[in-house]
């Protein structure tokens, strides 16, 4: 390589020019391809959202959002599903958030790099990689059968909590990392203990970032289907849940049921689109809030 460049300096201007142009052209072609790749992602999102809105918005009205399904789920609304999804995802985060924050605090504030920390991280990474249907099997074997919780909100929420734990740990750790080291040193220099520093200085500063993580965990739990299929959700239940041990309906499972096993699959298409639209508005809404909130936070931290 080096030899070539020194050669071309003096020898031949004639060779150099097409060479230059070739380099420019290949760069141009490659960069266009990279741009196309990025555009394809945007298009995919747009197309999916477009079709759901186009086919779904007509189904959505006040009755749809506030009534139970009727006539073996061919008419009526999806209120029980909305309530069910809210119960499940809030329950999941209520379970996973304290554990997630505490794990993140240990990993970021206390643990020293070494074998132990590596093992804990390996555990978290592998938990994040466990397929959602395996969480369903686990929930069925452990919460439903072994702990005798039955098919219930409690089993479903705990299963989803286990699934969203890695998301929450990751986000909380990022929030802790964003707290400037000088804050901790200032607090320690004033004579505060480590715990006082974490409790009074680090956590309040990191709280907005941790909340972002909680929102992401919430949206993750709300969208999952496979983990609740065997642990919490049922085809149809006419009443709203009154206790943690009730079985419930949920938006993602409702979509699946209507689209694959409903009584009149073609006739209930608009209900399926409507339910899917409600679900993605819920989830993309939560994510957008988290993304916007986080980018604001980052801007503030940099200042």
């Amino acid at each position, binding site marked *: 390589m080096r030899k070539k460049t020194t050669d071309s300096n003096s020898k031949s201007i004639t060779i150099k020019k097409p060479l230059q142009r070739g380099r420019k052209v290949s760069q141009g072609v490659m960069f266009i391809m990279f741009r196309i*790749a*990025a555009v394809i*992602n945007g298009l995919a*999102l747009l197309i999916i959202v477009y079709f759901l809105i186009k086919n779904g918005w007509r189904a959505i009205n006040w009755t749809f959002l506030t009534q139970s399904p009727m006539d073996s789920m061919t008419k009526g609304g999806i209120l029980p599903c909305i309530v069910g999804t809210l119960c499940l995802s809030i329950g999941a985060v209520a379970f996973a958030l304290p554990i997630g924050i505490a794990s993140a605090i240990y990993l970021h504030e206390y643990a020293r790099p070494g074998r132990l920390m590596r093992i804990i991280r390996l*555990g978290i*990474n592998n938990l994040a*990689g466990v397929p959602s249907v*395996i969480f369903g099997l686990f929930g069925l*074997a452990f919460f439903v059968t072994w702990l005798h919780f039955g098919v219930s909100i409690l089993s479903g929420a705990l299963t989803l909590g286990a699934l969203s734990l890695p998301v929450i740990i990751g986000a909380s750790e990022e929030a802790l990392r964003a707290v400037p080291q000088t804050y901790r040193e200032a607090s320690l220099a004033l004579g505060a203990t480590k715990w006082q520093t974490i409790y009074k200085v680090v956590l309040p500063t990191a709280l907005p970032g941790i909340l972002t993580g909680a929102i992401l965990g919430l949206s993750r739990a709300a969208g999952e289907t496979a983990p609740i299929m065997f642990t919490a959700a049922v085809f149809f239940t006419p009443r709203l849940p009154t206790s943690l041990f009730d079985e419930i309906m949920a938006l993602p499972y409702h979509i699946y049921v209507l689209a694959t096993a409903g009584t009149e699959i073609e006739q209930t298409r608009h209900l399926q689109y409507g339910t899917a639209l409600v679900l993605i508005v819920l989830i*993309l809404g939560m994510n957008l809030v988290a993304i916007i909130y986080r980018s604001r936070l980052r801007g503030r931290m940099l200042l």
Partner: protein
Amino acid sequence: MLKDRYQKERLIKNIFFSIALASITILFLIVLFLFIEGVPIFKVVSIKDFLFGKYWYPTSEPPDFGIFPLIAASLAVTALSSSLAIPLGVMTAIYLAEIATYRLRELVKPIVELLAALPSVVIGFFGMVIVAPFLQSAFGIPTGLNLFNASLMLAFMSVPTICSISEDAIYSVSQEIKEASLALGATHWQTIYRVVIPASLSGITTAVILGMSRAIGETMVVLMVAGGATLIPTSIFDPVRPMPASIAAEMAEAPFRSDHYYALFAIGIILFLFTLAFNMIADHIAHKYKQVGTATL
């Protein structure tokens, strides 16, 4: 009083430590219960017949518990979706980290994140009602619910994983070595593929493996879109039934603690081992070939 404070601090540290073990505990419980509920099937069939048996007819009399078609379907779906998702994901990552201006980056990154946030059941639904009829008429095939459709949908689920992790890796390549390459007269593109990509290769590899792990374990998409036939696929338009789809579709109808029930948990074990292997390899690469500034080249 000082001693009190010291003891209290130790206590708090230990409390946090024990909570931090929760993830491992859950992982351990998952393995434990998969094995408790899955192993009894091996009293009925041998491990070899289970893994390599070509027929999966769990409800016929006598039942056949061979999951080879399911494994083959899972591998085929994963391979095909990766061949679409890897170029797309890595190229988007390069675009984001190297080419895009700050403003475009701030626009495209959230799009990728939102793509990651789309619930799998919605993507599966989209594949069923929009993509399947389209494929059916475009290619004149008997069913649009097939291996190709499922791979296409899965690709869009693993692109965000591949993209965001490789983007981190590419973005963290140090400025000096890029400048050094540019100073030697290389174009931006030459710098990208001769310097930046080799320097971030471990990160990109990790991203690819995690993306594949996501694809093999994804359930709702393959359940709704793959077609559901327990055949060993011979063409990309064959309907198939990957492992997660079998578990999700059959668990509701399998009688509690019957052979069928045990067999589904055993499929869970195999699936778990696949993803565990993927994750371990990814973790190993990420640690062994860690990017440490300019020292990587």
